[in-house]
Structures are given as C-alpha cells and as structure tokens.
C-alpha cells in the first residue's frame, strides 16, 4: 500500500549528454515517469539540491545517479560535500560511472552510496539499472 509520500524524483548528475540521453531513453522505454532533473557537475547538483531542500524544508525526495568524472566538481568531491551537509547527508545516491577502479568503488561506498553501477554495455546495463531504480523508487522508503 502506498503511503501519501511524495513520489521519488531522479537527479541525474552527469556531464556526458549522450549518457544522459541514454538514461532518458531507457526511462522512456521503461515508462518511468518520475520527475527527472539533470545537472552537469557536482557543484550544480549541490546547488540544486540545496534549493530543493529549502523548498521542502527538509531532505528532498531525490534518487541521485552520480557520475564520477565531471568537470569542476567530480562525483567523489560531491559525495564529500553532500555527506558533510547536515541537511542533505542522507540523500540516496547511486554511482553510475564508467570507472571500475576498485579504489573508486571503495571511496564511493565509504560515503555510503546505495549502489555502485558500472556503465558497461550501454543499453542493457542502463535498462536493468533503471529497472532496478524504478523498483527501488517504488518500494523503498526514502529518508527525510
């Protein structure tokens, strides 16, 4: 039974337009209709989340898919910042990156990401991943 919580929104943090397009395509295919925002780097994502937080006076209901290699502020720095931010620290983050370097994985999980997904075979991974995210969004209770 669904509670009267707000439906989850997606925040795609990735500087690669094609990658974003791929995700959006995949979402369309899977008929994911949740609200989706895109930020092209960590700083913009942070600013965006902070704005949203003020709007709802609390943790906004976002599921963040985070790329690691971005200009200005990369994924790991974003994680540093967001976990340091009292209001936003509990936000659900899935790392979505091409890097399979174990070091990156370690560092990401150190920041308590919900999952670390490597972008391998574009369409298949995305479909499965987004399917999983869809299920996640529907089933899991997001923190507030």
């Amino acid at each position: 039974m669904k509670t009267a919580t707000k439906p989850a929104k997606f925040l795609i943090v990735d500087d690669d337009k094609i990658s974003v397009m791929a995700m959006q395509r995949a979402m369309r295919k899977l008929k994911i209709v949740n609200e989706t925002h895109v930020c092209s780097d960590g700083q913009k994502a942070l600013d965006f989340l902070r704005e949203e937080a003020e709007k709802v006076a609390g943790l906004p209901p976002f599921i963040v898919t985070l790329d690691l290699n971005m200009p200005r502020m990369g994924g790991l720095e974003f994680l540093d910042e967001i976990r340091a931010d009292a209001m936003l620290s509990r936000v659900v983050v899935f790392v979505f990156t091409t890097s399979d370097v174990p070091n990156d994985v370690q560092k990401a999980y150190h920041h308590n990401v919900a999952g670390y997904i490597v972008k391998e075979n574009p369409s298949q991974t995305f479909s499965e991943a987004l399917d999983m995210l869809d299920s996640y969004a529907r089933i899991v209770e997001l923190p507030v």
Partner: protein
Amino acid sequence: MLKFSALKASLTNALAHLTVRLRILLVVIGVVTAITGLVAILQVGIILAAYTELNYSAQPMLQLAKRIENNTQKLSLRLQSFTNFSQSTGFEDPVEATSDQADQIIEQAERLRENLAELKAYDVPENLIHDFDMRLAAARTSVISTLDTRDHYLRLKEELRHDIHEILSLHNKSQQLLESFTFNITSQSDRLMRDLGTSSRERERINEQLAKTFQMSLNINSMGFALDTVVAAANNASDLGGNAPSNRSILETREELRDIVVKIALLPDTQERLELVQYVARLRGLVIGPNGIFAHQLEQYELRQEFDRKRLQHLPLLSDISETVAQLVNRSLEIVDKSTTDLWGALQNLISVLITALFVSLSVILFTNWAIIERQFRKRIQILNRAVRAIASGDLDHPVPVTGIDELGEMASALTIFKQNAIELQRSNIELEKFAYVAAHDLRSPLRAISDLSSWIIEDEENKLSIESSAYFTLMQERTNRLDRLLCDLLAYARAGENDPEIETIDLSACIRDQIQYANPNGTFDISYHGPDVLIKTHLTPLQQVLSNLLSNAVRHHDKKKGCIAITAEVWPNQLTLVLTDDGPGIEVQYQERIFELFQTLQPRDDVEGSGLGLAIVKKIVERNKGSITLTSDPRLKRGTTFTVTFPLPEKPVAIAPKQARTAA
C-alpha cells in the same frame, strides 16, 4: 711529462680503491711476517749451531775432561799408594802385589792416553795435550824405572841370600878345618906335654914348641872368632836391607880378614891349610870382594836411595798432571760457557725479534682495522646498505651520502643513478596508470556515445533507412564495438601484472571451473578439467586473466561449432602447471612466435573478433609473475594446440580432502 702525470693520476686512482689498499696492507703484513720468518730462521740457525756445539762438542768434551780428571785421580791415588806402600811396609813386600799395583798404574796411564787421543778431536790447545802426554809418559817411565829399581834390589837381595848361604857353608867348613887344626894342635900339645915329662933338656924345646903350639891354638881360636865376627858382620850387612851400611863394620871386617889371612900363614903347611886358605879366600871374596856382601849391601842402599828419589819425583809429577787436567777441565768449561752464552744470546735475539714482529703486525692490523675497515669500509658500507635497502623497499627519497673515488664511492654513485631510474620508473608507472585511466574513460566515453547514438538511430528510424544505410550502421556499430573492446583490452594489458593484490587462498578447481563457465556459458563446448583438489596461495586476478584469455581464444578460434578443450593442472610445492589442449585447427609453426606480440591476429578481424592482445596480456602476466608459457602445435601433423603455463606459487599449497576430478558440464 704528460705520461708521468697520467700515470700518477691512474696510480692515485688505483690506490684509492679499497681492495688495493687492503691488498697493500696484507702484502705489508706478509712481508713483515716473511722478514720475521727469515730472521727467526737465522736465529734458529744460530741456536741450532750453538746447541749442536754444546751437545756434540762442549758437553762431550766436558764429560771427557771429567773422565780424565777421574782417571787422573785414580792414577794419583794409585801412584801415591804405590809409593806409600813401599815406604810404610818396607821394601820387602810380596813382589806380585806391588807389580800388580804398578800394572794398574800403567794401565791407568794407558787409559788416560786414550782419553787424550779423544781429546785431540776437540778444541783444545795443542801444547796442553802435549804437556799432558809428556807428563803421563814421564809418570809411566818413572813407575817403570821405579819398578826396575825395585827388581834390581830384590835381585840383589836374592844374591845376598845366596851369598850368605855360601858364606855360612864356608864358615862351617872353615870351622871344621879349624877344629881339625885345633885337634891336631891339641894332640900335638898333648904329645908335647907328655914329652915334657921325660927330658929336661928338651924341656925348653918342648916348652918352645908348647909355646908355639899354644900360640898356634891361640891363633886358631882367634881365627875362629874372627871368622865368626866376619860372618856375623856379613849376616848383619845382608839383613840391613836398604839401610845405610856401617863403614866401621866394613873396616873391622877387613881387619879381621887380614888378621885371619896372616894367621893362616902361620899354620902348618898342610892340605888342610890349603883348603882353609881356599875357603877363606873365597869367603873374603864373598864378603869384601867387589861382588861381595858389603858391596851388594851398598848397592842396595843406593838403590833404596834412588827409589826414594824417584818416589819424591812422583809428587811434583802428580801435581803437574793435576794442574794440566785442571786446565783441560777449565778449557772445556770455557767452551761450554761460550756455547751456552751463544745459545742464550740467540734465544734472546729470537725473542726480541718475535716480539718486535708481533708488535709491528698488531699495530699494522690495528691501523688497518681503524683506518680502512672502520673508517673507509664499515661506516660507508653500512650507510650504503641502508640506502640500498630503503630504496629497494620503495623509499626513493632516502639519501646516498657516500662519496669517494674507491669502489664504495662508485657503487654509491651507481646507486644514486638507480635511485633516479627508480624514481623515473615510478613516475613513468604513475603516468601509465593515469594514461590507462584516461584511456578507460575519456576515450571510451565518446565511443560509447557514438555507439549509443547509432543504435538509437537504428532503433528509431529502422523502417526509414535503406538497406545499405542499415548495413552501414550495422558495420559502424561493429567497428565501434571493436574499438571499445580494443580499448578495454589495451587497458587490461596496461594494467596486467601491476599492483597485484595480496596472496589469496584459492580453491583451484573452483576457480578453473568458474572460468570454464564464463568462457562457455552455453555449454556448446566440451571443456574438461583434471587436477588435484588443493587450496593454492597465489594472486587470484592474474590467474583468472590467464585462464580467461586462453579459454576464450580456444573457443573463438575453433573452426567447428563444437569443440573439445582439456585442462589439466599439476600442483607442486612451489609451482602450478596448467596445460590447455584444444582440438582446434592448430597454429602454424611460423606464426607461433608472432601471436604473442601486440595486436597480432591470425584471422581477419571480421572473421574472428579479437583485439590481438589476448596472448600478449597472458604473456605479460605470466612473465611478470616469473612463470613461463609455451605452445605446442603443428597443423601439418595433426589438429589441436596445447598451451603450457607455469605459475610459481609464492607459498606452499594446502591439500583438501581428495575428491574425484569432475568434468565440467
């Protein structure tokens, strides 16, 4: 000039080297030891010479001198007793005893002579020996002549005895004759006495005749007495022995004898008177004649004197001999002394030489130890050692503060170069890592975009596209995929064998079967595995990569839909051997080297998808892990390829309960 300075420079350079210095010092020590040895040998030579002399010359000589002394003493004693003997107990002693003594003395003298002959072999002055010889000869002669004297004396004694005997018998006969004369006279006087009684005129004549007869008997009596006296005197004289004869008794005896002779003339001239005269004459000759008793007795007396004289001669002779012997003994003592002093001197020399050598050697060693080993060597090599180990373990900032133009200095500068190289290498590796990272992301990203976009176009506009366009797109996708795979493999190659994770305990069979599963997910191929059930301790990732690449190669390059691959594993305490055999087309001999190179494929990339890096990666991994990979195949003979990979195991494997090797489905 130039040559000299060049020589000097090269000499200084050589001298700076540790080994050269140590060798020089060892040579110095060796030379010192050699010199010491030589000097010691010299000294030992001297000692030996002195000892030899002492042993074979001085000592024997001393012993000889002692013997001579002994013998001389014996000689002296014997001589003394010989002399004393005859003095104390008189000259009349048994001939044998005395001549025994004399024999002994002569024998002793002979022995001494022998000793002297021996002595000539030693370092004794000639005159000393000569003197001694002379004195011995003198002693000998003296003894012999003394004996002669004595013999003479004794002979005389015999003669005396003889003479006395004769004298006595003559005396007897004379007395008998005298008695007969007396008898005659007595008878005559008796007759006359008878006649006296008859006539008075004849009385005077008879009285005259009686007086004459009376006178005659008186004469005869006194003759008898005189004879007795003479004989008694002769007896006395013969008993005197060696004592001084009495001149008075000689004179008296002569008187008596003259008397007798006169009185004999008065006797009637008868046969008896003739006999008597003969007797008396003979007696006279025996008593006072030139060979008579008195003469003999005198002779005896003189012999005795001579004997005493000779006896007295012995004493100085003895003292002379003693003195000579003393000189000899002194001489030999001198020689012994000299030898001993020589020996002692040589020993002292030896000791001082040895001590000096020891001292020099010790100081050289100490100096070497301090100057070279301590200063030049130990400290610096310690520093160098620390630096080497630090750099080897990764601390590339460790300084190398060792300088010098010797071997250590050279090593230090070489080490510094190594350090730089290591730093460079590290930097290079880091660069490579970065490059690999970049290749992974920045190159693949746009590639993925191209791939995605093209696939989206195909998806969205499938119907609107012409067949050629579709085909173009398909080809484009294939190429982008290939490029992606190439980049992946390139990344894998770049990373292969680097930053190996820790050693893990791996279940070998499980690991291999996993890889079989990945390579053959649909089970189209028949891949079997035989090997022990062990837990091996090694790096997991390289092992997986090797297996994965080899298996995928075997599968992809097989020319038939269904193939057979057999994997066997042998586990040794320090090595893992994997053998992969497939029944594919095989690899021709001329390509067997090439296939391990980068980007080499044997089939066009359109026929068999492959980056050409697979075997290069395997080779790199295997070699990085100090193993080996070999390939056996000859399509001319038969189908199939066998790859043999050896993998050193850093730690010993652990066996689990043996199970039957199972064939993968």
